[in-house]
């Protein structure tokens, strides 16, 4: 995606939104490039849907401006913004057939009949819902309904697609199927898409960039791998990744001309760690993902230590081994054929390059 060449599709500038005295979005800025797939990710109640509704024009914002395709749409009606929206509950019109669901908005807008027919045929073909056109929504499965809901956005022939947790009402299997279909749809259409979810797998698999939100503020906006590998704070680090990142609380100390992380008798030399700025000695949190720790694989690691296995959790493709590091819970992900037993003594090793260090007070990355 060449952003400079394609330009900005959606630009949100200094947007604030209050419900009465409650401030839900706080001077928020977000630029989405033409054709980009941006996922808004965060725990429920953090203001993702609110932000999406602001972009759609379904909520009047308190402050700020919204541009779509270079046009200031801050006070435009939703239908005039060039957006299509897909909802969690599908929001199909239940008394109308699939075909009428797709065509109703176009007919109200006064589009010529043959143009409507053409657009419905195209959407039905792309989404493979041709056999369903004469059915009512009540006679469709959840996955089919959501396909029709996507179709209703598709026939509007818009530049920007907005999704509000479109897969949350589906069971796990359908969810992963439709996830792939949405990704294919994006590849085929090359539209700008803004997608809201609280599911990190959806975010990681779909997004060109993820905006991780908390309390109405975007914490980090980056490519999925960057967010995964270099989270800007402890919240982002803990929210992404399953099983979750290990956090060990301790201190950052300087020994000679090198820095170390110290917790009780544990001392991790940070020679390979890339600091964000000038580190300072003091309380800190050491974070490392369970899959970045290796079990019983020799002493070639920049850091290695020994511990006793407490619990083993088989997870199908691999196994989570729980033990204690500096009296704190710590998990290691291992492939199944090398699963240790309970109470077995093991050595574990990792490269601090893959770790993340956070300020104990602010939670910011060090």
């Amino acid at each position, binding site marked *: 995606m060449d952003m400079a060449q394609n330009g900005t599709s959606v630009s949100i500038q200094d947007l604030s939104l209050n419900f009465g005295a409650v401030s839900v979005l706080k001077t928020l800025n977000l630029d989405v490039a033409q054709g980009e797939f941006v996922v808004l990710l965060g725990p429920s109640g953090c203001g993702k849907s609110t932000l999406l509704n602001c972009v759609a024009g379904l909520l009047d914002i308190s402050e700020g401006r919204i541009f779509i395709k270079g046009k200031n749409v801050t006070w435009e*009606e939703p239908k005039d913004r060039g957006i299509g929206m897909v*909802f969690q509950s599908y929001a199909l019109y239940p008394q109308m057939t699939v075909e009428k669901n797709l065509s109703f908005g176009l007919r109200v807008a006064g589009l010529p009949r043959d143009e409507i027919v053409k657009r419905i045929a195209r959407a039905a073909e792309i989404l493979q819902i041709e056999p369903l056109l004469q059915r009512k929504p009540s006679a469709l499965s959840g996955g089919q309904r959501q396909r029709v809901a996507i179709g*209703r956005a598709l026939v509007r022939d818009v530049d920007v697609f907005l999704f509000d947790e479109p897969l949350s009402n589906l069971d796990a299997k359908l969810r992963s199927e439709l996830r792939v279909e949405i990704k294919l749809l994006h590849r085929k259409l090359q539209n700008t898409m803004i997608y809201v979810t609280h599911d990190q797998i959806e975010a990681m698999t779909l997004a060109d960039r993820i905006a991780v939100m908390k309390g109405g503020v975007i914490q980090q906006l980056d490519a999925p791998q960057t967010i995964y590998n270099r989270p800007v704070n402890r919240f982002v680090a803990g929210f992404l990744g399953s099983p979750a990142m290990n956090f060990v609380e301790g201190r950052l100390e300087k020994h000679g001309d090198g820095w170390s992380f110290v917790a009780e008798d544990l001392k991790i030399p940070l020679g390979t760690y890339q600091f964000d700025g000038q580190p300072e000695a003091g309380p800190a949190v050491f974070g490392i993902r369970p899959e970045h720790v290796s079990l019983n694989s020799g002493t070639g690691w920049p850091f290695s230590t020994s511990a006793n296995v407490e619990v083993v959790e088989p997870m199908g493709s691999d196994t989570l081994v729980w033990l204690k590091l500096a009296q704190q819970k710590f998990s290691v992900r291992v492939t199944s054929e090398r699963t240790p037993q309970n109470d077995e003594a093991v050595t574990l090793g990792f490269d601090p390059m893959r770790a993340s260090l956070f300020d104990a007070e602010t939670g910011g990355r060090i």
Partner: protein
Amino acid sequence: MQRSWRRRFHLPAVIGTIPMILVAVGVFVIGIGFSVLWSFTSSKLFPTYDFVGLAQYRRLWADSRWLVSVNNIWFFGLMSISCNMVFGYLLAVFMDQRIRQEDLFRSIFLYPFAMSLIVTGLVWQWVLDPNLGLQAAMRNLGWSSFSFAPLVDANTAIYALVVAGIWQGSGVTMAILLAGLRGVDEEIWKAARVDGIPTWRTHLSIVAPMMKGAFATAFVLQCVGVVRVYDLVIAMTGGGPGIATSMPAVYVIQLITVRQNVGQGMAAATMMLLPVLVVLAFSGLVLWRRNRRQEARV
């Protein structure tokens, strides 16, 4: 087969409802049976068993008073039900705007329904009485030529009944339709806005069709109200002026008590039963078909 029978009839429930079943069978079925039976006799003050075939029905349909009554009930029914639906829906939409003091408004709108029709009728009779109500008040205020006395005019009395019926019934229609309106998912409204569908069109083409059940419930309640209109007529006009606001129920009671003609009164009562039976049969058919469709889907 065995299982579905047991699912439908619980023994303790059947035993518990036996008194109700006895009353229903005794009063309604036997009572209705005798009404129909006597409608074929020449009964006058007391029921007899002197059968005269359809003679009472021929005399009934030749009686201009009965014809006026039938016309009146249709007029009253269609006017008050349709106006109640429209006003009730508009009130429900108004209440759905998250207005402040919603509870207060709801109580005000529902209040008339809590009153008996006799009270409603008396209140409206006072308001519309030339010497007590609106006309007298306006004249006292100095507008001496003001004239408003619909109840004493044979051409307008029926409209006064309709207005009283709407006043009494639109509140409860509002309450039922409001519940239906609240049941419509907010995302449907959002989707319609994104689709660029005007609000009135969303109501008409999307939301109202979703509220079929609420409309049906309100409609049935309104129909019951039309059948109960007897009290309202007696309290407001007594069927007058002349026979201008006579209704079938009023006609039946008058035949039995004043004109002492049980045979013809029962013929009229039987005629009143007919449309009820048609509605019952129709709704039964609809329910049966829906059940069958649901079972077919399971």
